[in-house]
């Protein structure tokens, strides 16, 4: 079966309202799966401990070397970058991991495939719950930083339009990266733990999240310049704490408008990559009979 036959064209799908239905059902399903695995108290503990522990590692590393000098601009640079980077792992994982979950654990992927839904939209919808819980983790981390670690975030000084726009673009960009990864996962088995986190962990190095790109050797920096996450995090920093972003020269030569333009362009590129990759991997998975493959691995 050719891939072109398996996914309705966008025009046809939109006409039938399939996209909305797929997105709504997938988001509901993702929410059900993510939200009812334990009681509220344990969930709150889990939601607080994990992001704070991750942030605390950086805080301790920083304070061991600098003697706890949280007033230096490098500290909020690291802290904010790390906080918003939570979205990267959450969305990448949320969109991609459900392929393995549905295929191997719940054995439902084959039924989703034969239903009248748009699979890429289904994957994106499934990632919605992880985005919500990721937002909670980001909020907790930033709040902790502001309250206890002198992160100089003043709500009155925040450029809210810029923040909302960059957050929206960033999440769209991450969703497309997640879709790319999810497509690849159609062809591999359940022997990797949280693939999304592994990829996010690798991108951590190149995205300027926790140190300016200038720290990297010159031959590695170009990788950072082609990853949209780099521009996204810079925009978020500029929106939230402009003075911190100004202290670092890496992207100082770009205006907000230029950064937004670059982010939009790269998001479009990654969107194209995502859908091309999906069509290829979807076709390969059907050819090889991987859609309902159960390896128990």
């Amino acid at each position, binding site marked *: 079966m050719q891939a072109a036959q398996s996914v309705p064209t966008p025009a046809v799908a939109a006409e039938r309202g399939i996209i909305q239905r797929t997105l709504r059902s997938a988001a509901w399903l993702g929410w059900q799966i993510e939200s009812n695995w334990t*009681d509220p108290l344990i969930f709150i503990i889990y939601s607080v401990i994990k992001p704070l522990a991750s942030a605390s590692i950086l805080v301790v590393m920083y304070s061991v070397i600098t003697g706890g000098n949280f007033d230096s601009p490098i500290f909020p640079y690291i802290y904010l970058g790390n906080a918003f980077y939570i979205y990267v792992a959450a969305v990448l994982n949320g969109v991609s991991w459900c392929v393995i979950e549905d295929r191997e654990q719940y054995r439902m992927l084959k039924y989703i495939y034969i239903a009248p839904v748009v699979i890429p939209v289904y994957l994106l919808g499934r990632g919605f719950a992880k985005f919500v819980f990721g937002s909670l983790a980001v909020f907790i981390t930033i709040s902790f930083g502001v309250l206890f670690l002198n992160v100089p975030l003043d709500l009155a000084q925040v450029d809210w339009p810029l923040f909302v726009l960059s957050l929206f673009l960033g999440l769209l960009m991450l969703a497309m990266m997640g879709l790319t990864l999810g497509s690849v996962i159609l062809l591999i*088995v359940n022997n990797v733990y949280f693939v999304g986190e592994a990829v996010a962990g690798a991108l951590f190095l190149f995205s300027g999240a926790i140190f300016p790109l200038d720290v990297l050797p010159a031959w590695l920096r170009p990788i950072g310049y082609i990853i949209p996450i780099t521009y996204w995090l810079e925009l978020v920093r500029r929106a939230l704490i402009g003075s911190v972003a100004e202290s670092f020269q890496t992207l100082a030569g770009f205006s907000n408008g230029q950064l937004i333009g670059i982010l939009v362009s790269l998001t479009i590129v990654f969107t194209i990559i995502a859908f091309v990759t999906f069509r290829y991997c979807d076709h390969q998975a059907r050819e090889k*009979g991987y859609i309902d*493959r*159960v*390896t*128990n*691995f």
Partner: protein
Amino acid sequence: MDLAIQTKDLGRVYKIRGSKKEKARELIALKDVNLEVKRGELFGLLGPNGAGKTTLIKILTTLLAPSSGFAKVAGFDVIQEAEKVRPRINMVSGGESSGYGLLTVRENLWMFAQFYGIPSKVANQRISDLLKIVHLEDRINTKSSDLSTGLRQKMNIVRGFLTDPDVLFLDEPTLGLDVEASRDVRKFVEGWVAENPQRTLLLTTHYMVEADELCDRVAIINAGRVLACDSPTNLKRQLQQDAIYRMEVSPLNGLGPDSFEQLKGVNKALHEAKDGFSILELMLAEDDALGSVVNMLTSRDIHILNLQKREPTLEDVFVTLVGKSMMEVESGDGG
């Protein structure tokens, strides 16, 4: 008496709770089950879905503790002496997905043989021999994720016999197998028990034909209780005095089975609506009662399309004991 399986007043209660806010309620899965299976027997456990067959098997295979009573397998208590029971048993369930899809059939079976301490050389030879019997030898090097459901079930069945258990539990083993494969398995199972008087096999099924054909004795279980336990012949003999008729008639036009049961001499009537006609199964105290049934039908202008007298089956035994057919019990129909 040398017993392979013995249970006394065996019971199991589950606590079920829908959502976390709901109060837990009790579900009685087994109650006062008393069974004695002799060594060398091929014993059947027959009942509808949800009767408690799998719960009983789980207890006997040391996977679940009873809430009351006790159970012994191969002479050892399943709870107090589980470590002595386990080397002597094995279990195969219908529709199971055990093993690892990335391993071949041979590798999966070899792995399970290791867990029983079977040396590799012996294990590989047994694997080859057993796969030949179930006609799976040509797929020995196929990854199990590439097998169809039926072939995978054949592999599972080989896994059960591979370890040469004293007591083997087969829980709906022919689920997913085609007619020919089911026949092969049944033939093999019979031969396996007959080959060695030390071997005992407990088979659960809701296929009456399977129980009738294979088992030395059958226990009929429903709603957690054993209703009868005897050889298929003796169980059916209890109904020998009944005359059992199967009629195909034109649509009954609202006439229900209870209308027929009100007639003298009609012990039980079962009805199944089909496309354009109905099937009536009647258990009559005597042949003469058929006349009143025919009168009732003809008085309502219902035509008799076919009439057969047949021998009682285990399904009839079940209906007599429970008051409904197995299908009605499973669907929750009042019947």
